[in-house]
């Protein structure tokens, strides 16, 4: 008797515990997503109103050169910026974990602080630093009589954006990796020491393999972050309007379509396609990593 009630109460307890999450998930995530999907099937014209167009918006979007350029640009950004950022984060995490760095707490906080700076503030600050006339780099170059670097020109812009994003997120990724390093059992290090492994060998053969799940996590976060690049280009647009156009990144394009061109339906379709790209790239990243792990 008592066994049965315990079992049935356990059966209701599970869903009850999940309910708060599910409710918010449906209300704040699935419902808007469904509404966006619904919107993407229509077309609204200033003259003529709203009509159902089926998948026409998607057909237009996959052929839209502005969207394709935007996606290719963030893909380039991902390929350049993410390796630099993750390698830096990894080096910092290993250095801090090695116990060889003096003032480890201060250094750790120092690297992490940029993440606490809102990306809007960070972009404004870097926008000032990049300034071709009055920015400190320009002033320094003038004082030293060397050519002023044009951080905001079309050739440098992607690199300048990558620098801002790296500055912002190295600390965040470092903390994830550092936490994973602290979770490695000390017995492993002792065993390695007994086997005669030095600091480098320990890092290579013990720490790195143990970090793989954490690295995968940071990599997938970075895929999403890179492909959704928005704040930084949106703010630097004011400083370099001729370089950053309304379709500079795919996300910026979706925003411009919705709020400048008032093409909300088409913007919804573009957003969905961008989401699809992110899912595919994330899945590809996970798939290659898993395949390597099980040879």
């Amino acid at each position, binding site marked *: 008797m008592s066994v049965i009630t315990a079992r049935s109460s356990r059966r209701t307890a599970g869903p009850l515990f999940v309910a708060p999450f599910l409710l918010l998930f449906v209300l704040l995530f699935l419902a808007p997503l469904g509404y966006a999907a619904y919107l993407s099937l229509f077309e609204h014209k200033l*003259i003529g109103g709203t009509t159902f167009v089926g998948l026409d918006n998607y057909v237009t979007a996959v052929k839209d050169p502005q969207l394709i350029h935007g996606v290719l640009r963030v893909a380039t950004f991902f390929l350049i910026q993410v390796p630099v950022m993750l390698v830096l984060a990894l080096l910092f995490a290993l250095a801090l974990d090695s116990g060889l760095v003096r003032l480890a707490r201060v250094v750790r906080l120092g690297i992490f602080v940029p993440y606490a700076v809102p990306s809007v503030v960070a972009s404004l600050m870097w926008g000032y630093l990049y300034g071709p006339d009055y920015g400190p780099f320009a002033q320094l170059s003038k004082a030293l009589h060397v050519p002023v670097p044009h951080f905001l020109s079309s050739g440098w812009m992607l690199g300048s954006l990558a620098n801002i994003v790296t500055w912002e997120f190295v600390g965040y990724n470092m903390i994830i990796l550092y936490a994973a390093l602290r979770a490695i059992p000390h017995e492993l290090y002792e065993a390695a020491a007994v086997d005669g492994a030095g600091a480098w060998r320990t890092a290579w053969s013990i720490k790195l393999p143990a970090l793989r799940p954490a690295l995968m996590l940071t990599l997938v976060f970075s895929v999403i972050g890179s492909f959704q690049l928005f704040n930084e280009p949106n703010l630097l647009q004011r400083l370099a*309007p001729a370089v950053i156009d309304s379709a500079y990144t795919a996300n910026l394009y979706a925003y411009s379509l919705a709020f400048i*061109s008032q093409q909300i339906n088409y913007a919804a379709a573009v957003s969905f396609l961008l989401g699809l790209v992110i899912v595919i790239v994330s899945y590809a990243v996970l798939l290659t990593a898993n395949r390597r792990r099980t040879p």
Partner: protein
Amino acid sequence: MATSSPQFPVSRRTLLASAGAVSLSAALAACGGDGKGGGGTSAAAAVSQADIDKAMSTATELTFWTWVPDIAQEVALFEKKYPAVKVKVVNAGQGGPEYTKLRTVLQAGTGAPDVAQIEFQYIPTFTITDSLLDLRPYGAAALKDKFVDWTWAQVSGPNGEVWAIPQDTGPLGMLYRKDIFDQYGIQVPTTWDEFAAAARKLHAANPEVYLTNFAASQPAAWHGLLWQAGGKPYVRSGKSTIAIHVNDATSKKLAAYWGGLAKEGVVGIEPDFTDPWFAALNSGKYATWLTAAWGPVFLSGSAKSTSGKWRAAPLPQWDASTPQSGNWGGSTSAVIKSTKNPIAAAVFAQFLNVDPASALLFATKQFFFPATKAVLADPAYVGATPAFYGGQKVNELFAGISSTVNTTFQWPPFLDRVEADFKETVGKSLTDKTDAVTALDQWQTRITTFAKGQGFTVQ
């Protein structure tokens, strides 16, 4: 202020009464031509003075979206005159952000304000969606003569609708550094040819100094200068037909002029209202700023270190025998069609900008450049001699310029997109120093494609 405010209560009453009669006849005329227009039908039902009196003595709360700082002072004047009506002021963002929110609540069908601040050039983007209330039945047509002609033309619809009440304006002039002009022996240019010659001379004399900065990414300034040049880039006929000529002869003349100076490297082409731009105005990198009538006060706050060195002059002219100017900026108060209190909202929009005390406050407290003839003739306003401009009567100068602004310039009903496309074609070409005249054709193609996609018949 003291001379004009006591007479107001009397004139207000007669004004509203006569307004009813005027708007009625205007409405009948409008209906004869085009009976199906939303404005035409509502205008027919002119609101009687009794109804207005009743509405203004009924307890009401109006919501007013505006980004004007300290507007509580003007609102207080209204609430004092109509104690039954309370106005809730909401700052929903300046310009673009406000319009985005406004469009969102209009689509949602709830949450729209009763009255909203809208810039002149954006009025057509809200009339195309039938979101504004024609103010004629509420006495607005009778206000025509109180406002400078071009400002009234900007708020008027093709059938005489009054879509908004002008609040402040920005006729274009030229602010220049007298000290720099004197140092390099430059005369104040009165024609664009003289201006170009001065630009070359100044930059040759000192490579660190430019005669001006042409913000290539500033479509509002471009439109203002095009307006001055007599351009008619957008002409609408009926709701769904628009003629787009952003690459006609006038525009090409303008693009060749600025594109040429940019290519020669004798004018700056950096974006405006950025930190480097503010620093440049302070340091004397630019000897003039081609700007609107709100510019003088703005500059005296942003370039304090240069006080006393600046002077103001009219824009250089294409044809010196007929002085012209364009407009850049300025706002209106519009009543949103979905309002549940159309009378109170319409009376508020009118009071705010017509009441002599309120209108003068905008000019003296917020430093807005006035839209009403009364303030533009008020010695207290035009007689001001700011030290920043060496005691020059700057307001008087711009008051004169305001009367030279062309009255026929029109805006497209999808201005946001037009401006974004400008930046990516003409603006980019000026910055990159490629052929700006060819870029006009790209701009034309882009807008035309967009307009057709939105269902317009493009001529």
